[in-house]
């Protein structure tokens, strides 16, 4: 019982702390309106403060799962716009990740070699 009360206290403490941190990210005084309000797509793309906080958390977790170090993940998320956060949190799996390395197997490789020879693709010279 005591333990449960302690963990509840800890949870609310963490929540309060992280909310404080989230508002600290805001650039100007609370009463100033940011320039993004004037973008043509402002109403559809801008996240409410709570949504923004959640999107940041979500994308940070995704970056951590991709093997990014904790402190780097925080800084990387902070440099992304609302649109970008929303896009990554929804579509990370489908987004192109420029690599330029070869991770191919079997049939795919053979087909690419053929395409390369007939001049359709440019996999091998580009590396």
């Amino acid at each position, binding site marked *: 019982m005591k333990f449960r009360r302690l963990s509840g206290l800890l949870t609310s403490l963490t929540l309060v702390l992280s909310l404080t941190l989230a508002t600290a990210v805001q650039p100007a005084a609370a009463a100033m309106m940011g320039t993004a309000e004037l*973008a043509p797509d402002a109403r559809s793309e801008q996240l409410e403060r709570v949504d923004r906080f959640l999107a940041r958390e979500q994308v940070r977790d995704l970056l951590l799962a991709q093997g990014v170090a904790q402190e780097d993940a925080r800084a990387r998320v902070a440099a992304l716009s609302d*649109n970008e956060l929303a896009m990554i949190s929804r579509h990370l799996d489908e987004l192109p990740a*420029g690599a330029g390395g070869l991770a191919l197997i079997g049939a795919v490789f053979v087909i*690419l070699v053929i395409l390369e020879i007939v*001049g359709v693709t440019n996999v091998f010279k580009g590396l």
Partner: protein
Amino acid sequence: MSPLCRVLAVAGALLLTACSRAPVLPPAAGAEQVELDAVPFFPQRDYQCGPAALATVFGHLGRAADPDALVDEVYLPGKKGSLQVELKAAARRRGLVPYPLPPDLEVLLATLRSGHPVLVLQNLGIRRWPQWHFAVVVGFDAAADTFLLRSGTTRRQVLAARKFLATWERADRWGLVVLSPGTLPPRAERDRYLRAVTDMEGIAPPAALIAAFDVAAERWPDSPWARAGLGNAYYAAGNRAAAEAQFAALLRRQPESVLARNNLAQLLGERGCRAAALALLNEGLASHPIDDRERAQLQVTRDEVAAMPVSAGNCPPPAARAKSPH
């Protein structure tokens, strides 16, 4: 149709088009040759073409460019690659403007002509099995119908224009110019540019934002977006007088602008002009058609201003500002 058949069909179709060898670079380019020789080169290691390509364009602007340091900013070990949006974010963090080019060959050529290397995404494979790759285009040769790139481990890659365009096309013609703040790209599109700079707000140093919005306000003097951005940049830099001048000018031109009204009132309140600030806010709340969100914002500001100390400074008369139509 099995996947293999489909691939062979696609390959066949591509083969047909590949046989027509009309030059790809437009005839208007004539025998034009452009090569940005001075653009540095950082050979890519492992799968890290993103950091290498970024270092190339940063180095071109005279910024510190170390691909190894950039790995921690843009590389995703799990994907063995980098995302386009993270390349933009890395530029923002340095106070540089990441301007995405419209997907247009003519604009790519114009950008190279004016001396800017272009970071591009290529799909070196096919749509079904993509091989994503970042490289930097540094020139073209119209007579030879080729493009010149810094790519992978090749310092000066000469690529047939037809081949380059095919790989670029398969990556939806994505290209990025990284600009020093205060520089506009050739054929700059207003909203495209302002979006890029607005996304830097709160991330780039205020001085960079001032320069980047200032050049936009000069080029598009009628753009409320550019002027509001400049006002907010001055505010972030701590230059309240300059910020106030921008919002006052914007409100004179656009009395219905909630942002101009709200931010001007906040600035007036901060320098002790409570009466003038409250008059602006009350007028906004009473007379303009505003939505719930804007109403809530003006009310927050009113509460904040009402709690600020009053000083006997040089305040504008509360009514004069509200009455002036233009």
